[in-house]
């Protein structure tokens, strides 16, 4: 159940130039969240920036009652977040949104690009726990930005990486790895999160191969709970109504949308 929690920071690491991970003790959120859900984070203590920032739940330690977030510094809000020290508290709302659907014992493919890997790590953990066979395709600009690599490796998923500059794995797009020669013969479900052009390629592959799947979308948000109608998006150009990414998503079925 969504709630407001003062998350106690127990770990805050810089992983690469603009990538950080932060672990917060937030037992209510940790105990009730699902992969694909997000938290809405108050950054800084003043009225500028004013709004909360949505960040996916990257990992969860249910025993410790902690959640971990992975974030990339892109603007003032994320920049301010880097200043928070261990032992300080952060005001977070969550878990919010509709997460990924996940069945037992499936062969699942996760395709993440950049910081879009965040919700997929938690998903990979949950999938492993459900006895799934998990393949992850992970793309980044360069080796140093494969910040979730270690965590995924520890989860013992089948992991393939691509970097734009070729400094690790395949040189090029992560979508290039969507090829039978790299993939397990049977895939039941595909999940993807990352830049929209990447997700469009993943969706195309899924459709061409008749595999169902889900994508995680982003929109600028104010409330995060479906009240302000700010994060509206038409899933298909001809739709009459707008979905609310914060409440109807951020995860949507591939077949209900056009990317």
């Amino acid at each position: 159940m969504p709630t407001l929690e003062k998350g106690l920071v127990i770990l805050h690491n810089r992983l690469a130039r603009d990538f950080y991970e932060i672990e917060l003790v937030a037992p209510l959120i940790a105990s009730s969240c699902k992969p694909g859900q997000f938290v809405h984070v108050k950054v800084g203590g003043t009225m500028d920036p004013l709004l909360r920032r949505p960040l996916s739940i990257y990992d969860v330690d249910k025993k410790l009652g902690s959640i971990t977030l992975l974030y990339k510094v892109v603007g003032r809000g994320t920049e301010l977040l880097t200043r928070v020290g261990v032992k300080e508290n952060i005001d977070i709302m969550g878990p919010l949104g509709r997460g990924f659907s996940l069945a037992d014992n499936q062969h699942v493919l996760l395709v993440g690009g950049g910081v879009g890997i965040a919700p997929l790590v938690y998903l990979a953990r949950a999938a492993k726990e459900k006895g799934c066979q998990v393949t992850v395709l992970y793309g980044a600009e360069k080796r140093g930005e494969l910040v979730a690599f270690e965590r995924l490796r520890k989860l013992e998923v089948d992991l393939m990486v691509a970097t734009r500059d070729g400094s690790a794995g395949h040189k090029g797009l992560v979508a290039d790895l969507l090829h039978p020669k790299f993939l397990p013969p049977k895939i039941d479900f595909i999940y993807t999160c990352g830049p929209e052009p990447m997700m469009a390629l993943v969706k195309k592959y899924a459709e061409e191969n008749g595999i169902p799947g889900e994508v995680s979308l982003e929109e600028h948000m104010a409330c995060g709970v479906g009240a302000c109608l700010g994060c509206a998006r038409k899933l298909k150009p001809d739709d009459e109504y707008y979905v609310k990414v914060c409440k109807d998503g951020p995860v949507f079925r591939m077949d209900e949308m056009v990317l």
Partner: protein
Amino acid sequence: MQSSFNKAGVKEDVDISVDLGGLKLKNPVVVASGTFGYGLEYEDFLDISAIGAVIVKGTTLEPRSGNPSPRIAETPAGMLNAIGLENPGVDVFLKEYLPRLRDKGVTVIVNIAGNTVEEYARMAAKIEGNEGVAAIELNISCPNVKKGGLQFGTHPDTVKEVVEAVKKETSLPVLPKLSPNVTDVVEIAKAAQAGGADALSMINTLLGMAIDIKKKKPVLANIFGGLSGPAIKPVALRMIYQVYKEVDLPILGGGGIMSSEDAVEFILAGASAVSIGTGNFVNPRLALEVVEGIRNYLQEENIRSVRELTGMAVIK
């Protein structure tokens, strides 16, 4: 002007109930239209029936799907929105949402927006007789909808006309919500009074915009949007102060309230009750925290009733 009924240091309970032209509220804090959905979206975070009133999302005669995206943008200490009055229409509201809110004991104020005077009147007529509605707020100031919105709220004649038409159809207290995008808000307030308004709601958003310098185009798909949040607080306070001095109607005041201190500023400037909008996004429990904060302020200041506080800072 200072009123202290108690011996210093002795705190006794204070009265925070208010009456705005027939709209009776258990406490002087309401949540503003469009910022709290139908209340139900926030149920996980607070007891919504404990809020003074929930003003529901702007309701229109027909369902509306709203504006394209992006609909919101953050600005310094504020935000822009151009939602475009997305809502399921008054009939669906009355059938689907109102009963649920009534069952939960929520004090409901319906915010209505029309494209024509007749639409306002028809909506008021539809709402009339439905149990569970405490008042009607007239959105005559929404800057986003081309044909309605700005025009109604910026001309005294049409303001008077709309209020009159609505008053004819309803026995409920009617609160026109004034636009700040006018040269003389007092003139508009007087027109609302002449039309029979029971109280005034002020202020709605300031019309603003933002530009994306990478894309070289407006950030919002709608180009313009309504500016809300702490950035507009000084303007809201000024307008309430002006209207309180000149117009003898209770005021529901808001615009940028983020704390109980802010709320007290509004009450001192002339508001009988306050509305919280953008602040809900930052702190979903803000409305009830403000109720508590006002109570504490009254106790510390030895003021027995919040009603005494209204307009105390106004220099007549």
